[in-house]
């Protein structure tokens, strides 16, 4: 009897070949050489540094610095989100299709409305596409060092992100009330307040709180470019290879990120419950208390940071800022420089692809125990590992990996892989837990071994979701890969850092443009791949 042929053989071999053809050059560009991790010299360097971790630094003076930096980090995140909110609301209202009067039908000013909306959408892409650390680096130059630069950077990038998501949330709700109001001659503001907000307010608030949590993680690293907070301490300790101090700061990161996580999850749960309880009872005392405390926190943050943003409003300051940004024009488009930037861009792309891919594989392996398949003890242990992996920012992983693997893009790949494994591992575990059990149970009852039952019963049902998560992370990782070079981990970052240090603004703006193009291209590629997954 002839063995049955695999009907999908051709597609599988083809896919494998294609993957190799794409990944091989990327691996070469990214200097993907795992064995260097085990070279004697690198082991000695890393061992020496990790040996210094114990005991963590606990001197009084250092702890005082650490405490102050922690508060500064939290204040920066809160003030940044408040600023982002102020930036995002008008932009979201202006760009959302849900409040478009021109969509109601032909009328005067229709073309103008469409043009304005397209222009604002491009502005949003620029705000989001340039990583917040690059904004921070630019603002540090204009405003001087300190948290003001970090707050403005967060305000702009997160303002762009919030505006986009707010606009999408407004569009995802029930459009009919707003439309009815607009058609009956109501203003856009009225349609927003009475037609749209009642339906989506809870989702908007929930997303804003989630972004605050992300902002805490982002402000942790702002200091790497001189914008204050914990990052600045970390940068110094890592540069001086002071293991004890680095260990204390890492522990603080872990505590801070986990606390922000828990707080944000708690707020969102409360808001969620309030939302499902129906509109009349929507405002219980607890959500009100939460919102009041958030307002208080924002106030306290601005007071603590003493930003002096008022100074920005003077004519002289505005002129000097305009001068500074004008000096970035025109871009250096000479062939020699474009070649160099192109090489950096390829390296950045390689770091993001390989880092994400490696993370997807590790995350899947870690998600198996974390989803509780191998007992509660192992579940708790892996979850702790995942939390630890994800609470250390990519930039900090990169400084550590530069010791373990030497300076260069491979350190960047490892850094992205470690952090992303933590993020994806948690999401994958949740997806596995929520997967329908019946196909697997059917296989198990038919006598299939557990491993095979997982491969054919559970995995196929969650694969599209897992891949979608991985693609989303890739979009974030391309932005991160672009800046890992600030700490010597390859890609466009080092080019940008050096050119800005040398006041080569024209060259720097070419690099920033390349970062923007890369992130737009990856967003498009990822969106099209996700659409294909269905």
């Amino acid at each position, binding site marked *: 009897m002839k063995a049955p042929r695999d009907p999908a053989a051709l597609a599988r071999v083809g896919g494998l070949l294609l993957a190799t053809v794409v990944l091989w050059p990327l691996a070469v560009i990214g200097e993907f050489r795992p064995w260097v991790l085990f070279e004697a010299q690198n082991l*000695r360097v890393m061992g020496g540094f990790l040996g210094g971790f114990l005991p963590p630094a606990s001197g009084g003076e250092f702890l005082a610095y650490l405490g102050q930096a922690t508060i500064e980090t939290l204040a920066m995140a809160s003030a940044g989100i408040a600023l982002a909110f102020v930036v995002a609301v008008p932009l979201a209202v202006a760009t959302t299709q849900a409040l478009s009067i021109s969509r109601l039908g032909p009328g005067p000013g229709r073309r103008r409305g469409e043009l304005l909306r397209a222009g604002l959408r491009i502005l949003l892409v620029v705000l989001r596409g340039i990583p917040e650390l690059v904004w921070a680096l630019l603002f540090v130059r204009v405003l001087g060092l300190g948290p003001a630069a970090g707050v403005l950077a967060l305000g702009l990038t997160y303002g762009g992100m919030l505006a986009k998501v707010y606009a999408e949330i407004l569009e995802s709700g029930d459009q009919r009330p707003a439309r009815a109001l607009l058609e009956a001659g109501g203003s856009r503001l009225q349609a927003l307040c009475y037609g749209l907000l009642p339906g989506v307010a809870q989702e908007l608030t929930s997303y804003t709180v989630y972004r605050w949590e992300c902002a805490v993680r982002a402000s942790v690293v702002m200091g790497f470019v001189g914008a204050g907070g914990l990052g600045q301490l970390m940068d110094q300790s890592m*540069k001086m290879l002071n293991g004890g101090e680095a260990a204390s700061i890492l522990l603080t990161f872990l505590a801070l990120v986990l606390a922000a996580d828990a707080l944000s999850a708690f707020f969102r749960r409360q808001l969620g419950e309030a939302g499902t309880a129906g509109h009349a009872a929507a405002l219980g005392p607890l959500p009100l208390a939460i919102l009041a405390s958030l307002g208080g926190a924002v106030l306290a943050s601005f007071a603590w940071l003493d930003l*002096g943003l008022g100074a920005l409003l003077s004519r002289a300051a505005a002129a000097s800022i305009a001068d500074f940004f004008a000096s970035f024009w025109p871009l250096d488009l000479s062939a020699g420089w474009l070649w160099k930037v192109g090489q950096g861009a390829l390296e950045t792309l390689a770091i993001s692809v390989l880092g994400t891919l490696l993370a997807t594989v590790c995350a899947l392996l870690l998600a198996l125990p974390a989803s509780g398949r191998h007992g509660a003890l192992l579940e708790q242990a892996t979850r702790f590992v995942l939390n630890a992996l994800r609470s250390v920012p990519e930039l900090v992983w990169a400084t550590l990996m530069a010791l373990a693997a030497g300076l260069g893009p491979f350190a960047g790949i490892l850094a992205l892989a470690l952090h992303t494994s933590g993020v994806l591992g948690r999401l994958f575990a949740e997806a596995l837990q929520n997967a329908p059990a019946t196909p697997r149970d059917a296989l198990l009852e038919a006598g299939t071994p557990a491993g095979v039952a997982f491969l054919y019963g559970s995995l196929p049902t969650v694969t599209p979701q897992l891949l979608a998560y991985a693609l989303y992370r890739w979009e974030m990782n391309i932005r991160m890969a672009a800046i890992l070079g600030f700490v010597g981990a390859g890609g466009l970052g080092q080019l940008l850092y050096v050119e800005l240090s040398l006041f080569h603004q024209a060259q720097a703006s070419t690099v920033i443009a390349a970062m923007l193009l890369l992130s737009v291209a990856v967003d498009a590629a990822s969106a099209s791949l996700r659409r294909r997954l269905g």
Partner: protein
Amino acid sequence: MFRFSRRLALKGALVCALAISVVPSATAAEPVLRVSAIPDEAPTELQRKFAPLGKYLEKELAMKVSFVPVSDYAAVVEALASDKLDLAWLGGFTFVQASIRTRGAATPLVQRAEDARFTSKFITADDNIKTLADTRGKVFAFGSPSSTSGHLMPRYFLIQGGINADKDFKNVAFSGAHDATVAFVAAGKADAGVLNASVWEKLVDQNKVDPKVRVIATTPPYFDYNWTVRGGLDPELVRKIAAAFLKLDPANPEHAEILALQRASRFIPTSKENYQGIEQAAKAAGLLK
């Protein structure tokens, strides 16, 4: 009712926040001399070095002196150009950048006697590296990209010795500061590196250098650091600042402490012309366009 009060709460919070940030601080009336330095060493070290000098300047100038710590070279240049700083300790290359950025308004006042004949040391902890030529194909650490003695002049002298830093090294790292370069090399994060001779000697004196790390080459001498004032500062104040520095006398024990921390035998007047050599080197090395 609920939406209304929540929006009101958010609005109120934002208005208050903006109000706080806009109200100018009340301390602006008293004249303050704002001083900073390029962060070529760890910021804590810079503050320690400046403390007695700051007190001395306060006494001599009869005005408050505040030290603004900074962790980015270029930010010092921008701050001088936008009148956020009055006096700054600059490297030779940062001075050239500041001079260009302020269209010649930034003026160098004084420098240490040692800055007129400054050098950099090439170091390694690798037994196989014996001369500069052996550093080809290795990982090499500079200090900050904006540093004169940690990047520009070593890069310039490497080119003259036939080594192009962009092509001939396996990888170039920027440690950010001179003391960090020593840490990079001692730990093996970089195979070789370069830093300024003054910081190297200080670290050796303080026994802070790993015994494996040794010097393989020294650059020819060049002009480096100076104290620069921004353009538009009161000429009388500028004269007093320069006089205060020049008056420092190693025979006076109080002054001797200040000079020792600055690693200076004494201060001497300096002028823009001294830094033309640096400008040419920067152009030759492609760091200045």
